[in-house]
């Protein structure tokens, strides 16, 4: 039995709603750990408030943030599965279903980039990214809606034959530019290498990695570790209360390219909206988070 338009339409609708009403478990755990280590009272109180708000969102079926962002999905398609129907259309229609049925309703956030006009639909909405998983007989979809709060602080620079210290100094410049405006503690993604577009995608995907997960390359593991320490020494703290927790995680990825090296940095705010489900080839849907 193939994976159908109807299954994906419903999956994309449900993923979006889940992402608005649940802070991922790894993120809640990281907030709890941060609260234990935090030395400043106002920062501890802010971390407590965040956790209580996140629990309320989940148990009372409420939005964690009033800004629902715009829809963005990352789709991984197993090479052994069969598809039936218009898959892109399923995401467009799934979002339309969400707008019609979600309670409480979401506001208009999809913005025309030139006229600033707002709507529930738009060109290239939802933003879709497709990838393949060799040999798999399932599909995985991650939804990570994005809004201005943390979205606006992403940045990118193209280096030529950079030293690692230049890359790390640039990373810190991005951290200082954002200050405490991206709703910290944040998850920071950095993509190094490849092409302009590939580096940006790596940075974004790096923010989707689970907190506490390790990169396969020891060189990157070390970089992530020292950069997280460095970010948390800046002292912006939770929501700009000062303190020790400006970031919950720094996730880095890289790709080979040429001797020009794009470096992209992006941020996800503390609610870290991210939900994933898996659809097996027989159409069974499993929520992974």
């Amino acid at each position, binding site marked *: 039995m193939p994976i159908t338009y109807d299954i994906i339409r419903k999956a994309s609708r449900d993923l979006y709603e889940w992402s608005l009403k649940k802070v991922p478990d790894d993120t809640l755990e990281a907030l709890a750990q941060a609260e234990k280590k935090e030395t400043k009272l106002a920062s501890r109180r802010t971390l407590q*408030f965040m956790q209580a708000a996140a629990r*309320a969102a989940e148990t009372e079926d409420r939005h964690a943030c*009033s800004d629902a962002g715009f829809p963005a999905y990352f789709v991984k398609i197993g090479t052994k599965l069969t598809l039936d129907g218009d898959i892109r259309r399923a995401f467009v229609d799934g979002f339309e279903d969400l707008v019609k049925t979600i309670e409480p309703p979401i506001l208009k956030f999809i913005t025309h980039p030139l006229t600033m006009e707002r709507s529930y639909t738009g060109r290239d909405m939802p933003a879709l990214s497709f990838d393949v998983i060799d040999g798999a007989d399932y599909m995985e979809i991650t939804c990570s809606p994005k809004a201005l709060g943390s979205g606006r602080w992403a940045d990118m620079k193209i280096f030529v034959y950079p030293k690692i210290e230049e890359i790390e100094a640039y990373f810190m410049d991005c951290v200082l530019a954002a200050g405490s405006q991206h709703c910290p503690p944040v998850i920071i993604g950095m993509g190094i290498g490849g092409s302009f577009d590939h580096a940006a995608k790596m940075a974004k995907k790096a923010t989707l990695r689970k907190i506490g997960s390790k990169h396969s390359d020891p060189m990157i593991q070390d970089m992530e570790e020292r950069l997280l*320490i460095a970010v948390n020494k*800046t002292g912006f703290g939770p929501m700009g209360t000062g303190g020790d927790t400006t970031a919950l995680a720094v996730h880095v990825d890289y790709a080979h390219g040429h001797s020009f090296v794009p470096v992209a940095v992006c941020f996800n705010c503390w609610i870290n909206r991210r939900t994933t489900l898996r659809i097996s080839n027989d159409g069974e849907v499993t929520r992974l988070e």
Partner: protein
Amino acid sequence: MSDEPQPDIVHLNLPLSPEEARSLSLGDMVLLDGEVTVSAGMITQERIIEALESGEDLPFDLQGQAFFHMGSNCREENGKWLPNYVNPTTSTRFDALMPTIIRGLGLTSVGGKGGMGPQCVEAMQEIGCVYFSMPGGASPLLTNGVVERLETGWDDLIEQFRLARYQLKSFGPVTVAIDAHGNSMFQKLQQEAADKLPGILQELAAARQK
């Protein structure tokens, strides 16, 4: 954990008088009661400035009031407009407009997230106005401090851009992050981080050698 004293969180009634605003200190955590007008729209602030310049009336009186950079959504129940959710939006994006609005309306408090720039801080000092910083993304708890929506203005705009006047009860806690004496927690943190940066970069260099 530090041994800092645990200060009591006091209640304030909005709108503040300029004197009340001047009595607050940077870092004070407070709960808010009273009335506030909110909007998340750039276009809304542009309209306020147009009205101030032309002498045209605003949909309701904002003189000496509290104005928060906040989006909101309501439902009607038994003739009352109850909030589904409210949440702050980034204030710095209004930096070019807010000094004129703070002065023109004599605002005694502004709320939002992320703070405001130096020219806003200057206007706030002049008028007797503080900035309340609230956590973004903690909507359920913030919304619990909102009693009802009293009225809206400029209803031709989308919901989160309209002017909306709300009744608050124990809203927050929010933090006084810019006081009425020219001090900004955001500027302070930004400066401190910039001062620390050379040392942080040195430590990164040392960590790379390990």
